[in-house]
């Protein structure tokens, strides 16, 4: 769906999207990194609609994902790190779970 038009810096990290490894350039946001593997679909709304990042600048909250076990993370504001586990967020975010995972 998206293509790289810049030259690779040669510095990459491996993250896991829904458990599958994805190699991406260092410094990339999670939202950019999972564009292709997710087919643009990174969460479902509470009514079950597929949604993906819309603004890429922290405003729309369509990019909320589960990152390293913590739900409700804005993927467009989060930079990839080696071994990061990224999952789609389905339905209404669970704030209790979030505190448990974090704490």
């Amino acid at each position, binding site marked *: 769906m998206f*293509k*790289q038009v810049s*030259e690779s810096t040669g510095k990459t990290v491996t993250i896991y999207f829904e458990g599958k490894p994805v190699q991406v350039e260092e410094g990339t946001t999670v939202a950019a990194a999972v564009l292709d593997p997710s087919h643009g679909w990174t969460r479902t709304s509470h009514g079950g609609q597929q949604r993906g990042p*819309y603004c*890429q*600048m922290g*405003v729309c909250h369509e990019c909320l994902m589960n990152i390293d076990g913590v739900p409700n993370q804005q993927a467009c504001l989060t930079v990839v790190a080696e071994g990061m586990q990224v999952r789609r967020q389905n339905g209404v*975010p669970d704030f209790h779970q979030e505190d448990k995972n974090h704490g």
Partner: protein
Amino acid sequence: MDKVWDVIIVGAGPAGMCTAIQTAKHGLSTLVVDRQTEPGGQIFRSAGSSSMIGKLGKDYAAGLPLVKQFLNCGAQFEPGANVWDIAPDRVYYSQQGHSHFVRARQVVLATGAMERPVPLPGWTLPGVMGSGASDVLLKSAGLLPEGPVVLCGNGPLVLQAAVHMHEFNVPVSAVLLTGRMGNIMHAMKHASGILARPGYFLHGVNMAAKTMLHQKCVLGAHDVSISESEKGLQVHYATRSGKHRKLDASTVLLHEGVIPETRITRLARLRHAWDQKQRYWHVDADKWGQTSAPGLRTAGDIATVRGAAAAQAEGSLVGLDICRELGQLSLADRDREALPFLRIIKRCQALQPFLDEYFAPTPAMLQPHPDAIVCRCEELTAGHLGEVIREGSYSPNGVKAQARPGMGTCQGRICGQAVAEMIADAHGLSMENLPQYTAQPPLFPLRLGELVEMPSPSELM
């Protein structure tokens, strides 16, 4: 932690960076926070690190020296710091899952703008995004859609995207231009403004010419909607003569201009004003960025959307006046140092009426089709909200109480203006008189644990 900064600036776009450069230069302790991981803001997104820096034209390349100057100016920069509450002397932000509280003698909000959300049927489908969002991906990650792309909207950023697609061989099915044909007539009344910034104007003409030459353009496209198809997405639209057409696309990029993102300034209860031409609310501030709240200033797009040159000049003026207020500059020195920036602003102001008329939003676009989801978070359609409004809701807060738009995670950033436009249209009200959604802290959903862990302000005093 109990340090009181002279100045805290929220936003490291062109405006915020220039404010910091002035205040740091004149010896004021300056803290700059930005939710992005790098300085630059929207136009200069990732300019300090992007491998695209030499490939996207002069406008973007100008960001690199500015970012370097900012990073070396002596101000402290906190990246990845998302501000969630604000008062004239204090700022609360969240950084890597932890919240912090900082105090200052002067606070500057240089938080910028966003693309105007214009709901249409199918705009929530994966593969549809803002044209500015695609620009962010290009600058920060070197990514462009594989195509075919349909670009749809109105404004200089549509032309810029069309040129980028051509230069990087991205197939574009069509560029649907939704601006009104009559805009040019109104714009020509302000044609003398062109003389103030001939280079900037010609750059725009050049982008328009390249778009017309290399892309299939549809002028006056309307009734746009998007649906899923076997090949990905299908865009439906009507031509000026009323014929209905379809286009295949894998990515659809929408853009209807840029509006100030006023949630943070509404939270601070600043006085706002309505811009009737470009149809947006903005902070009512003077040329030194002074708002209705003493100690709280604004700079750049949040006050008026006039582009990067004006944002930089405004940011510099705000910085200079803070230096005067905090005793680092005499009035005479402030005025002397302000001169070059005032000249730039004068030139930008002279051309602005032309641009505002030429790219004025199309009223019909602002009244969404009943099937369009207006509140993306709560999945509320224009059809449903329209009923609630017609049954007797006269304010955005009223509609919110009855039907829940604006209650989701984006807190009404996406639906706020669309709901107001619907109310104004249904009841014949003027937008100027419509109160917007009330903004409450925190500005985005925070973990409860994060709030509990944060030292309370009273402990710090």
